[in-house]
């Protein structure tokens, strides 16, 4: 797989934590449903595991999966954003199920692998899907993963950047292996999140 071995974070709350209360979103504590799309093998879950890893508590016995993870990110303006990250199965045969997952999502990360043009084609398919069926104000990010494998690169950054610009997305290349740009990716999404107007 594309990134070094890592464990899911423990702060996602164990499965079965069915009584977990969802405190209401206020202007300082935002909550965001984020969906991950992209071909299988591009390292979707590696990116998320890298992001939540900072909070990993080795003493915790709670086991969680890598397909749903949540992480709170504190921003400089003292707001916090709680990411609830929904992974989707990337294999072709499951593509028709994706709308069930991105319904109601405030943000989407569409991932491809910079060493695979085919995976960029798949990413473009997802972008079109989201534009057609996703919510209008969804924040979309195009992410070229496995940037550490630059000697095998087949997708140029410039092409991807241009595609992203044309489609109103922001673009970043990441390496889940070296953690390059991983936090920046989530910070950027958090910054773009519309802030609820505080009650006057």
């Amino acid at each position: 797989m594309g990134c070094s071995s890592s464990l899911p974070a423990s702060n996602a709350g164990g499965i079965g934590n069915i009584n977990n209360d969802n405190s209401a979103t206020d202007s300082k504590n935002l909550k965001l449903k984020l969906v991950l799309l992209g071909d299988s093998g591009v390292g979707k879950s590696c990116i998320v595991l890298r992001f939540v890893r900072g909070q990993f508590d080795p003493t915790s016995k709670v086991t969680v999966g890598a397909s749903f993870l949540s992480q709170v990110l504190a921003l400089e303006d003292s707001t916090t954003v709680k990411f609830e990250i929904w992974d989707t199965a990337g294999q072709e045969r499951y593509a028709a199920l994706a709308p069930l997952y991105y319904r109601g999502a405030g943000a989407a990360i569409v991932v491809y692998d910079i060493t695979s043009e085919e995976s960029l084609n798949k990413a473009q398919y997802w972008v079109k899907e989201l534009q057609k069926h996703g919510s209008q104000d969804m924040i979309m990010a195009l992410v070229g993963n496995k940037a550490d494998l630059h000697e095998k690169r087949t997708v140029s950054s410039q092409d991807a950047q241009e595609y992203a610009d044309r489609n109103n997305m922001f673009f970043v290349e990441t390496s889940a292996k070296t953690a390059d740009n991983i936090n920046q990716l989530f910070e950027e999404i958090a910054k773009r999140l519309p802030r609820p107007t505080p009650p006057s």
Partner: protein
Amino acid sequence: MESPSLAASRVDFYGFLDRMRRPAAAGLFRSIKSFLASLSLDAEEDGARVQAFYAAMEAAFREHPLWANATHQEIDHALEGLEKYVMTKLFDRTFAASPEDAAADAEVSERIGLLQRFVRPQHLDIPKVLHNEASWLLAVKELQKINSFKSPRDKLLCVMSCCQVINNLLLNVSMSNDRTPSGADEFLPILIYITIKANPPHLHSNLKFVQLFRRETKLVSEVEYYLTNLISAKMFIVNVDGRSLSMEENEFQMHMETAKLGTQICAASLSSPQGSATSTRGLQKQTDTQGSRFPFMDSETESLTAAELKQLHGLYRQVVTRYASLSKALRKLFIDEDQLLASVDDDSSTDVKMLARDGIG
């Protein structure tokens, strides 16, 4: 962590009932009773009304002397008790109550019954390293429990336990093989396979019931994610075709046909043996399905019209084709043909043997 929380929920539930029996709760209890009596019989509409009732009762609990100084958690327990009480009372009127739901349940269940016979882990992209019969069986058992409970929360717990078992498997495999977990790319295929294996009764109605009647404020985040996965597993199953299992469409159709035949054989060998006199009118009526499946059994050959002969010829072709696929299926199943024929009742086995003798087998 599931069993303790289930046990805790039961304790909470008795606590809730106890509190409801107190004189001070008489007013609350009356509102619950009158709400239960007021419901219509339309599931979607009932869902909205039940949700509104939960919200109204939450406000009533908070202001009620019985919950004076209660913590957020205590109120929450009371609301869990309320959900369980209300939905247990309404269960028969709201669960699989419409003919459409019953039909959808039967359809999904029948389809899974067929898929069970030929879908293998590799058809769904489940890598070998994740094959683990013991874990899978445990997940199957957890999912099958969904139909043993009446409250939406308890049903949802079964879904969560099933997903927990799968996640534990994924985590153990990734730790012992020093392998990065692949998230949903691995989770969803296993859940679909487990759902096919489990064929949980009333899958459609159970999902609908939880979506409509679980307290909205609790159907969020992780719980919502895993419920969505089961909903998408059901959707995959309902729409499955050759392409989604990496096989040619005609190969898929052949598998489905063969599976149907296999199911019919099981049904036939389970049904009570019939007398040999199928020609008597009275018996024909009793065995209605047999009669419609084998028309012309009583007709005199001379009395058949040309059109009927044509129809009969069509049926003959069907019988031959089915028999051919049946023999193929049997060879696959390693069942001794004679042994199987002997287990079917005399009449039909004679028919099949006759066909076999006529050079089809």
